[in-house]
């Protein structure tokens, strides 16, 4: 077989040309003719009931085609698959900014203006929107038992050195650059196409089909490009269904985009967490007790727990372990998966506490972590399929120049700045999910081209590119001869780009599909090959110009016997202005051990992106509720501060090489989430090292460093 080396190469994104020329189609870019424009009407109370909605003024406004409210909306089947509800089905209001209507007009301007004319009368109830109050009612979540190994209380009592602190993380929002938007087109009475940026293509398809009682194959989700998601575009939210209802009533394709201000109340959020961490160690630095208790909130009728304690189950060897959650209802939209759910916020708490403990023990925090490295997974005793945290810590420290760190806080000063070094580690599970794919081959003379088709998605992760690389190398043809079709639910079902399962699930399916194609072709040639034949030779020998096969790839049967996680070690240098308290991350070294790297260029971008999310989480991101009204006062990019270009210094990625034979066939572990985990902790620890101030409440804004 001809050798094509493509997997692991730093190939530039094959969809890059579309993106730099403005030609890539996001949901609102499809040139569907005859589309009308929808504009949502949102509730202005957080709890209570709609008494009446007066749509008469709006209906009379120029260009208005229809106004849809609970009074005239199609009745949908109840569904938890459409997250957050808000499908205009009843009069109950459970959070501020809940969808209560939609105006459809000929133009965007007309719809927006008319939406202001819809008058809603409410029966207002007092909202549960003050976390400090609602947390007192927190109870054990329905689906989560406390996890207890050994006896934490006894071990803590016996420990030489202890840490017992509470760490707070605020509500955060995903804020993808493309606001959620749906273009809904009814092709027939029972046949719907939605252009909707979807991380889980088949998931959105199933959810929408379910509420309308349609066969899944009658709902087509089209999403070739996704303008960011980070978990918020994982499932369908109420507005997706509202767009389809509006399109049905208006008998027109309807474009419905959320405004940036609507985003805070429409597509989930990362919930507020209060984490109490208790650590106990012997005086020579052996961790003997670890307790991680998280108190949080869900929505009013539904629980969602971000698993903050997960990190404590896997990171360090503590014989006595307790991980617990408590949750209370609150009048906000249901929280949802947000980049490295639980692990990022949980690692801030755990890695801060570990740093505090290391300081008390006067042990270098890198060495402390290495000292407490577990030989097998503390959570379940399974062997690691691979774990290279120690290598990541050692190499990261070396590249970063950790040995120049002064242990004593507030001892490194340059000009007006206190300078600090900090380290924080992270982990995220590596998994493969069922994914099918079709591999199509066409031959013209001795020129073979491939098309690979599956309902996968690319939200900037590089799916297109890594799949083309995988197919090219496996088939032995140039990347330019590979076409990739994804982002369409009519293709073979695939896992989603969520939970870091995308790369492993998609790439392994494509790999297996290409191998299967070669095997089947070889069988068709009816002869024995003494040297591995090329795909061209095979097709010629079989006298085929076209061939296709389908694979239904599944995780390795033995994968469950191992514990598979990506790990990282992050090192941050932070400068804090001594007068203003403004902190700036000058540089980060992120050493990641994540199995096989399919493309270092796109993988590097994933790590950098994760680190920048960590910077935002550490220093500036916070969604603030006014407890009196239950609304967010931070509704815009002027109030919710995602990092700007100047907030980000140098970021260097180290890929610690791993050959993991157990996690999946390609040995891919995934990088989408792990990149953020541990970063906020590293930054907070650096700020302590710089200033001597231990800030346990994120974000660390200037006021907290005065």
């Amino acid at each position, binding site marked *: 077989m001809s050798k094509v080396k493509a997997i692991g190469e730093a190939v530039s994104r094959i969809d890059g040309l579309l993106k730099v*020329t403005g030609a890539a189609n996001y949901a609102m870019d499809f*040139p569907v003719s005859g589309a009308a424009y929808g504009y949502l009407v949102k509730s202005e109370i957080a709890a209570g009931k709609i008494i009446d909605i007066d749509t008469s003024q709006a209906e009379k406004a120029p260009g208005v085609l229809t106004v849809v409210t609970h009074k005239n909306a199609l009745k949908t089947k109840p569904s938890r698959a459409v997250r957050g509800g808000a499908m205009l089905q009843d009069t109950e209001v459970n959070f501020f900014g809940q969808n209560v209507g939609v105006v459809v007009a000929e*133009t965007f*301007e007309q719809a927006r203006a008319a939406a202001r004319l819809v008058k809603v009368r409410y029966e207002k109830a007092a909202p549960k929107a003050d976390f400090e109050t609602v947390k007192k009612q927190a109870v054990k979540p329905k689906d989560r038992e406390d996890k207890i190994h050994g006896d934490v209380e006894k071990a803590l009592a016996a420990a030489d050195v202890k840490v017992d602190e509470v760490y707070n993380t605020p509500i955060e929002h995903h804020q993808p650059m493309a606001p959620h938007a749906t273009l809904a087109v009814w092709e027939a009475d029972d046949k719907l196409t939605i252009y909707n940026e979807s991380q889980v293509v088949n998931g959105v398809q199933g959810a929408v089909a379910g509420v309308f009682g349609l066969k899944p194959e009658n709902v087509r989700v089209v999403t070739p490009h996704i303008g960011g*998601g980070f978990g918020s575009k994982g499932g369908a939210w109420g507005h997706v269904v509202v767009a389809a209802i509006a399109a049905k009533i208006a008998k027109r394709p309807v474009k419905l985009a959320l405004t*940036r201000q609507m985003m805070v109340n429409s597509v989930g959020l990362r919930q507020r967490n209060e984490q109490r961490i208790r650590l106990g160690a012997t005086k020579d630095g052996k961790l003997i007790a670890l307790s991680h208790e998280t108190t949080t909130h869900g929505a009013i009728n539904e629980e969602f727990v971000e698993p903050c304690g997960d990190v404590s189950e896997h990171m360090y060897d503590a014989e006595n372990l307790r991980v617990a959650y408590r949750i209370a209802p609150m009048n906000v939209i249901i929280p949802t998966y947000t980049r490295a759910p639980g692990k990022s916020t949980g690692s801030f708490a755990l890695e801060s506490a570990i740093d505090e403990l290391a300081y008390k023990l006067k042990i270098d925090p890198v060495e402390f972590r290495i000292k407490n490295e577990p030989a097998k997974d503390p959570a379940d005793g399974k062997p690691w399929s691979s774990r*290279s945290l120690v290598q990541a810590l050692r190499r990261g420290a070396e590249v970063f120049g950790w040995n120049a760190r002064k242990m004593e806080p507030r001892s490194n000063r340059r000009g007006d700045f206190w300078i600090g070094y900090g380290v924080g580690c992270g982990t995220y599970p590596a998994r493969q999910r069922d994914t099918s794919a079709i591999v199509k081959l066409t031959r013209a003379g001795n020129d073979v081209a491939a098309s690979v088709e599956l309902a996968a998605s690319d939200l900037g992760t590089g799916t297109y590119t890594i799949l083309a690389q995988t197919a090219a190398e496996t088939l032995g043809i140039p990347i330019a001869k590979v076409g990739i079709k994804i982002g369409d639910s009519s293709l073979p079902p695939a896992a989603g780009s969520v939970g870091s399962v995308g790369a492993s699930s998609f790439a392994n399916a494509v790999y297996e599909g290409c191998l299967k194609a070669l095997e089947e072709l070889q069988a068709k040639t009816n002869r024995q090959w003494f040297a591995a034949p090329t795909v061209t030779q095979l097709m010629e020998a079989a006298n085929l110009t076209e061939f296709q096969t389908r694979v239904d790839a599944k995780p390795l049967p033995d994968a469950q016997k191992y514990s598979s996680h990506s790990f990282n070690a992050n090192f941050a240098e932070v400068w804090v202005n001594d007068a203003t308290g403004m902190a700036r991350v000058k540089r980060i070294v992120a050493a990641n051990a994540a199995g096989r790297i399919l493309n270092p260029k796109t993988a590097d971008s994933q790590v*950098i992106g994760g680190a920048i999310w960590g910077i935002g989480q550490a220093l500036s991101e916070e969604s603030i509720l006014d407890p009196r009204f239950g609304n967010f006062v931070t509704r815009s990019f002027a109030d919710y501060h995602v990092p700007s270009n100047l907030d980000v210094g140098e970021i260097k990625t180290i890929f610690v090489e791993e050959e993991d034979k157990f996690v999946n066939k390609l040995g891919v572990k995934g990088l989408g989430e792990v990149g953020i985990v541990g970063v906020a902790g590293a930054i907070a620890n650096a700020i302590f090292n710089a200033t001597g101030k231990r800030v346990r409440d994120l974000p660390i804004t200037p006021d907290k460093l005065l």
Partner: protein
Amino acid sequence: MADEFEDSGAEQLTADEEALLTDFPELGELGEARRRFLGQAASLGLGAFAVHLLAQEQILAEVKPDANAVFAPAAEENAVAVSMKINGAQKSLTLDSRVTLLDALREKLGLTGSKKGCDHGQCGACTVIVGGRRVLSCLTLAAQCEGQEVTTIEGLANGDTLHPMQAAFIKHDGFQCGYCTPGQICSAVALLQEAKNGEASYVSDNIRQKPRATKLSDDEIRERMSGNLCRCGAYPNILAAIREVHTGEERAATWEFYREEKGDATV
């Protein structure tokens, strides 16, 4: 849509475009900008995939209107006539006074490269170049652009050749999801001119100096690009792309692979 404006910039199809249209007749329905892009895609080699993808997307978007569809009477409230040059072609439009330049480009002219990220001047995704300067098209009324020259992401390439900034963004992976990218690139292109003009920034340490062309430091570029938010976090790569075009010096990738010398890293 097509009857809403006159197009005085009659276009000639290149040989590449002709060839593409033979292979993908459905592309004939595409707007001017996309056809031009296809020409580039074909001539650049790496674009075969992009062409196929675009062809797929175009087919996906072919929808037959519902026979019972209702249309409201077209009432242009407070109609304003405006004519401007967009990417070199003269366009005359009659628009509701409320239409922003961004919505005119996207909804009336089919130039959907400029993106709506916030619609309130807080993210930069809608950045275009008007009269040689970068501005936010979401906070510009189309009516204000009478007689202006507008360049959007679709107009940056020179025929079949990408603008060096576009090529540098691909090379340095200056994007992930790609949604902020058109705004980033328009902003970066205008920034080069601002540096030539000697314009200062808040991080400049020589405010009192007479304006003269300056070679920008990394922090200067970061500050000047801070009006373009990128949620995926491509900033270091955006910086690398701009820096390379600005200085002409190649920027190497910064990642490294590490394998421990003794002992296997894996269990």
